């Protein structure tokens, strides 16, 4: 039976951490059972130096993903050796009390995405090994609070890695109202989750400007495109403001409407002024931003727009389209 990958990685990690001098590839190959097997032909199947080399490179990359700093050192004979130095791999001293430990415990559970869930528990386990108190989760008692960060978009993981490593990407993107997706070359800056949806902010190479993308509108695979950014990354990336303006939440004007008494609670909640007219109708002043016309039409005959004329015309157009069927 093939040796479990976790066993192989664990042995490589322990060898590299335990040594004080660089170990050559040959020494590592002869020390770790899984590598010995990779080189040795089994049942006629070709074990080879090549397959060992590929395995070894992949394993080093995997260990680096776990945070291990592996140094490559050349000795006087020109032979390459590897080691994971204590100084560069040790967690600096950190002392957390029981309350702080419990709070981190709650935070570590919110990810629903496999990679980040694994990384968050891994972080907590490293802290546990460093003496983080095994506190009782204060929320376990009544289980009231269950914050969850949803990640349903396939594009999330490749974009997260591209943001982390500052790698340009290429993906097909279908704009909200576009029939067909278009390829977009983007230097990804940051991902933000707002109201349960993920957005990417970055520099759009084709348009030569900053753009915000909604991950659910990315179709197909996210591909890496070369290395290095061409545009400077701003200190503050404002995803939420851009999305809020799409959603019409940034209003610079106000509108005057009539609303049937008792109807349209969300409009009342947003209103800056409400006047009861006493005839079954109220008059409301509400913020007027992008998309207000579509929202008002939802309330059908319970809303009448008074001002401004432009909004009134937009609402009438929409109502006519619906009336026509």
């Amino acid at each position, binding site marked *: 039976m093939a040796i479990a*990958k976790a066993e192989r990685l*664990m*042995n490589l*990690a*322990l060898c590299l*951490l*335990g040594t004080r001098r660089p170990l050559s590839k040959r020494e590592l190959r002869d*020390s*770790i059972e899984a590598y*010995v097997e990779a080189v040795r032909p089994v049942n006629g199947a070709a074990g080879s130096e090549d397959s060992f080399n590929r395995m070894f490179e992949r394993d080093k990359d995997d260990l680096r993903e776990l*945070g291990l700093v592996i140094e490559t050192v050349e000795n006087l004979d020109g032979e390459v050796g590897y080691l994971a130095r204590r100084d560069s791999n*040790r*967690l600096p001293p*950190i002392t957390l009390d029981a*309350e702080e430990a419990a*709070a981190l415990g709650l935070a*570590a559970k919110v990810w629903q995405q496999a990679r*980040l869930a*694994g*990384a*968050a*528990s*891994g*972080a907590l*386990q490293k802290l*546990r090994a460093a003496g983080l108190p*095994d506190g009782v989760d*204060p929320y376990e008692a009544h*289980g*009231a*609070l*269950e*914050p*969850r960060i949803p990640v349903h978009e396939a594009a999330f993981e490749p974009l997260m890695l591209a*943001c982390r490593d500052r790698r340009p990407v290429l993906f097909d993107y279908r704009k*909200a*109202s*576009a*029939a067909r997706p278009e390829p977009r070359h983007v230097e990804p800056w*940051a991902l*933000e989750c*707002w*109201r*349960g*949806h993920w957005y990417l902010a970055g520099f759009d190479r084709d348009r030569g400007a900053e753009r915000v993308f909604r991950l*659910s*509108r990315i179709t197909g695979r996210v591909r890496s495109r070369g290395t290095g950014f061409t545009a400077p990354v701003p200190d503050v990336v404002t*995803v939420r403001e851009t999305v809020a303006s799409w959603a019409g939440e940034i209003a610079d004007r106000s509108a005057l409407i*009539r609303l049937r008494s*008792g109807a349209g609670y*969300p409009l009342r909640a947003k209103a800056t002024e409400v006047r009861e*007219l006493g005839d079954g109708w109220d008059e409301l002043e509400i913020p007027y931003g992008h998309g207000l016309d579509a929202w008002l039409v939802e*309330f*059908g*005959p319970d809303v*009448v727009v008074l001002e401004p004329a432009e909004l009134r015309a937009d609402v009438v157009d929409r109502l006519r*389209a*619906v*009336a026509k*069927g």
Partner: protein
Amino acid sequence: MAGKPARTVNAIDQTRRMLSLVTYLRERPGARIADVARAFGISEDELVADLDLLPMCGTSFRGGDLLDIDTDGERIWWHNPAALGEEAAEPLRLAADEATALLVAARAVSTLPGLREGDRQALLRATAKVETAAGEAAGASSRLSVTFESEGGVFADVDRAISERRRLWIRYYSPARDEVTEREIDPIRLVSVGHTYVEAWCRRSEARRTFRLDRVAEIRILDEPSAPPEIELRDLSEGLVQPAAEDPEVVVEVGPGGRWVAEYYPHDSADELPDGGLRITLRTPDPASLRRLALRLGPDGRIVSPPDLAESARRAAREALAAYDGPVGAVPGAGGGRSERSA
């Protein structure tokens, strides 16, 4: 080899865990399986699988100094802790992904309005300490952020009612009917999936209901104890709206400008149309609630079936249009118009 990536992730997670585990166990001879599994946030089976694997691992040179760790099913014994040299036994620094995952989650949770102030302070202190300890690895965490929806006062009241096991009175807005209703609910848990919801037993409908906190118009904690029946909690990770197979079917056709419908409404199918639009088939227990959607879509889409739903949207639009015939502000059923206001 569809299963391969998942296995790769597991091997990495397991290696990461075992590296911490050896450091942890070295300090705690005779540690109990149950305690260690809880401290590491894993099942006892997962821990036992790690313990089966560790005796195959060592710091160098085959067979020479393997870790002699075993368990009697209750406690864990390590017979040669010295086999793990001082170097390999140190707690490891955080990887960039680990720091990102923990810090982003901690920052998001610290903004949750329902968090008790003491816990928020503890979390902020912990976050600062982890940032310092992570050093450079913390840098990339600024490239990811999460904001939970915040309905502060409502959240705090629901959270308190759950911990004190008390019933709540709420005025709740249902967009489907555009009405605000009063009801008493026995809250079970708070869930944050984009928006924040309370899952509760609704005393008015005698059924399990999920209420979105930003739709709670008013809330009061009652003196009566909360007594929800024992119900199985659902896994809500796939979304809160889970239509049933027996719900009536609705077909909506949208143009390119209405494609967002497929993003917001869980649906059975969404077929591409030649004009760049979609034909979306979805199910809902209450098709009448989709009249709003038909109105909202305007020129960007229409209900195809059921026909009575399509007709009710057309009727509502015609009725609404009547108010715009004639002079500005001439509202049907209203005594006066715009002139009432001293502008």
